[in-house]
């Protein structure tokens, strides 16, 4: 089978891509890591978190939604782009209540891991400390909206993979939140612990009960190796 291949450059390095692939997909296959939060392989990308922002021929685009084009010059790991990403991650930290010190996702959290990767020691924006709510009504799954970054993975996974549409966004701007179908509690829905939606949360907003500390802090995914190491190992 001969698929038409195109070639473009990320930070001056030639990358081959199939026609129709996004910059993110092509980069992943080539072993070039582009930081991301809302993007998850196998889910429909929607470019909401902007962490995967790259410059394509001088214009900012989200790598997870932007198709790779023949001959394009993509900037990924430049000082300017890293600065933009640092600001985005900073904002995600200050606009929620991210108490890493007692969060059971700490060490496995992708938001935290992106911050580690960007060597962020403290956010530069003032903390907002919003009032957010919890939902512990489901026997196996817990929602803590303090930690939600509105990436939409759960909305996507529940709708497209599980076929249940348990989650939906409601509200606008700073009032926006992940709501449970028909304004009910999670315990009133048909969500099951085996659902894809229970597995995709990059932060500790959707948590499986009773398994939180099965792996101790210090021995978790991002404790020793930066996020993206697995992709970079391919190059």
């Amino acid at each position: 089978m001969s698929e038409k291949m195109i070639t473009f450059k990320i930070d001056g390095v030639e990358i081959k891509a199939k026609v129709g692939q996004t910059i993110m997909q092509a980069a992943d296959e080539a072993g070039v890591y582009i930081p991301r939060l809302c993007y998850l392989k196998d889910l429909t990308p929607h470019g909401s978190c902007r962490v995967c922002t790259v410059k394509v021929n001088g214009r900012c685009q989200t790598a997870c939604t932007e198709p790779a084009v023949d001959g394009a010059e993509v900037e990924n790991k430049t000082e300017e782009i890293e600065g933009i990403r640092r600001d985005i991650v900073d904002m995600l930290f200050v606009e929620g209540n991210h108490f890493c010190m007692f969060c059971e996702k700490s060490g496995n959290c992708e938001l935290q891991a992106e911050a580690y990767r960007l060597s962020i020691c403290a956010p530069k924006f003032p903390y907002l400390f919003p009032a957010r709510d919890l939902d512990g009504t489901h026997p196996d799954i817990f929602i803590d909206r303090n930690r939600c970054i509105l990436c939409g993975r759960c909305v996507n996974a529940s709708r497209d993979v599980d076929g249940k549409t348990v989650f939906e966004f409601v509200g606008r701007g700073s009032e926006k939140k992940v709501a449970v179908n028909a304004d009910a509690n999670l315990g009133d829905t048909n969500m099951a612990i085996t659902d894809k939606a229970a597995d995709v949360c990059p932060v500790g907003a959707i948590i499986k009960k009773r398994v939180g500390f099965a792996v101790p802090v210090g021995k978790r995914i991002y404790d020793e190796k930066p996020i993206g190491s697995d992709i970079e190992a391919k190059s």
Partner: protein
Amino acid sequence: MAKPKIATASLAGCFGCHMSILDIDERILKLIELVDFDKSPIDDLKKFTGRCLVGLIEGGCANEENVHNLKYFRENCDILISLGDCAISGGLPAMRNSMPLKECLDEAYLNGPTVYNPSGKIPSDKEIPLCLDRVYPCHEIVKMDYYLPGCPPSADTIWEALVALLNNKPLDLPYELIKYD
């Protein structure tokens, strides 16, 4: 030449970060060769005896005394470091930030399920520092120069930072020493 001086303070913290300073183990002997300790809970000096090179601040600002103390440190230290998550973000005490102060005090002194308080009053003695409306990270009160995250920052993180600063080197923490937990 006199040795440079280090001062430390625990504001709205749990002293865990100070325990982590002690956790540098036998390296503390080396540290004592390099520096003198000024105002600090470690030597219980209440007032600065002179200009300090480094001030390590544990904890955020939850009451007026914390603010006073933090400003006192800023005036007397060349380099001020937020040590640990509470100094950086307010930490656990900042959990009260998403609700009004009155609700917290009412819960603590009047309505909590285990409260025994026959007077029915919230303590207001002038000896007790007044609570702030919310808990503030140190850098929202004064300028902080460096941040060492962690709950607590590991002894290695503290050691690396002090050694770099005392040798006039840039503070560049490796991946495994930047932790928020």
